[in-house]
């Protein structure tokens, strides 16, 4: 067997190899990851970074363009746009994070249990997921708001439900594939309980996929939450929030002061694209080499 022991243990990569890999096309996901990380940091450290109180009105500096005092200008009540963008990152990210977390956890639990148990339970879960999948998240959220009233909490609850299939459907089919692998049969034969096989073996192997799906859907949920606030059903003024800022700045566009809508919209678009690119980068890296 000596001839068969020449395979080196994993993990002995040279840093040089990493640098080359970066140059060979991992630059995009790394840049995307950096953008996402920076936005998250901005949200966390908004009080330190923001030059002004986000809600401080200044009647003497209304609707200004960018200047040394206000880098990104001011809005129609003289509030500093940069400060509002920084503070606005908090609700703009927190709600999508909660949604992604809930949909990710519940979706994975549903998916794995359905794939494992099969039978009528799987059929009911799948039918439910297909049904929910048919509704765009925003429509569900608006219906929720119509019934229970406006507010970010309604958006979080309804969008968590709406994004459930986005995670669960993909994870379920991966779990079905995983379950059919001989190692799962072997573990069953060895007498391990289904619960243990699911938690200790299926789940860790499915986690990269969950992460990929969650990353991508984080971007889309943020877009939905922003849209929900944009139409006035989410975050309420005067709280700074990106979707709300796009809406607030809308009259300014006609008046030739597009700064508020422009910058807030730009931040949303960049963040969604970054999540998408990061998701597909992770997918290539985590799922490509794993099989």
């Amino acid at each position, binding site marked *: 067997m000596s001839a068969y022991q020449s395979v080196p243990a994993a993990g002995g990569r040279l840093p040089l190899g990493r640098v080359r890999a970066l140059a060979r096309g991992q630059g995009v996901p790394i840049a995307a990851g950096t953008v996402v990380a920076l936005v998250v940091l901005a949200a966390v450290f908004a009080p330190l970074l923001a030059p002004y109180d986000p809600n401080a009105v200044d009647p003497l500096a209304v609707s200004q363009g960018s200047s040394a005092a206000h880098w990104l200008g001011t809005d129609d009540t003289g509030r500093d746009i940069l400060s509002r963008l920084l503070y606005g990152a908090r609700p703009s990210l927190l709600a999508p994070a909660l949604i992604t977390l809930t949909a990710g956890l519940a979706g994975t639990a549903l998916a794995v249990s359905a794939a494992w148990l099969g039978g009528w339970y799987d059929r009911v879960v799948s039918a439910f997921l297909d049904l929910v999948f048919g509704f765009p998240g925003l429509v569900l959220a608006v219906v929720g708001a119509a019934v229970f009233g406006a507010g970010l909490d309604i958006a979080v609850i309804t969008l968590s439900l709406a994004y459930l299939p986005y995670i669960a459907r993909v994870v379920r089919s991966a779990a079905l594939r995983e379950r059919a692998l*001989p190692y799962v049969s072997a573990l*069953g034969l*060895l007498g391990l309980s289904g619960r243990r096989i699911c938690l200790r073996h299926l789940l860790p192997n499915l986690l990269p996929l969950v992460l990929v799906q969650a990353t991508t859907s984080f971007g889309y949920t943020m877009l939905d939450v922003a849209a929900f606030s944009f139409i006035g059903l989410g975050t309420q003024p005067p709280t700074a929030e990106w979707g709300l800022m796009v809406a607030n700045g809308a009259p300014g566009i006609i008046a030739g002061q597009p700064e508020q809508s422009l910058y807030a919209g730009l931040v949303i678009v960049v963040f969604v694209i970054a999540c998408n690119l990061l998701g597909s980068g992770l997918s290539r890296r985590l799922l490509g080499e794993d099989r």
Partner: protein
Amino acid sequence: MADAGAPAALEAAGLRKTYGDFVAVEDVGLSLAPGASLALVGESGSGKTTTARMIAGLEAPTAGTVRFDGRVLPGRRARTAVRGSFAGDVQMVFQDPYASLDRHQRVADSISEVLAHHTDLRGSALARRTAELLDQVGLTAGQARSLPRALSGGQRQRVAIARAVAVRPRVLVLDEAVAALDVSVQAQIVTLLRELREQSDTAYLFITHDLGIVQHICEDIAVMHRGRIIERGRTLSVLERPGAAYTRKLIDSVPRRGWTPKRGATA
């Protein structure tokens, strides 16, 4: 095949499996005495894997029964506690060494997890027994700490065998367990299986389409064709004087290697 009187480790009778109208396995009966070794051979699609999976309880037979020491194997949907009680009766090693192990579990952990489930061993005693089992199949301590992806196919198959042997099964089903490996590694695994059998009274059901290695492990052979067992007997005598025309065809299609059938006046 088993001695009359001695209780069979495995007794399968009238096994039948259909997929829709297609009959994959028809009226297969097998019996293994403790420590016996039976080869199940046949061309691709002859129903060997289906038979093995029914014996291991991974597939519900359309008809027929599988008994270990007289106990009937519960179905695939039986409660895990019930199924688990059969772990010591039958284990299976699968054809694909690359999918037989959890790719996120270190080799030693995959053994100790099973040991911890079936024995009272904990802590250092558990680690010692794990190392012992891995040593027995010729794996080093370094390999024990690595993930499956750092191992070759032959080494992974050794891990799968060690894991199966860890529960001291009465019957070990090996479904093309060496088919994916190259010839020199096959020989190592075959040697390993022979050694393991000398140390316990585990009975082997050795499934293969490669007649070349059969006589090195199995005293008895059963030939499958289109879902049925068409011939059975002592390995050497079947290989030398096949009764069925199909068996002869099967033998003739194997490149001469481990054995040389003596025919007619030769030597």
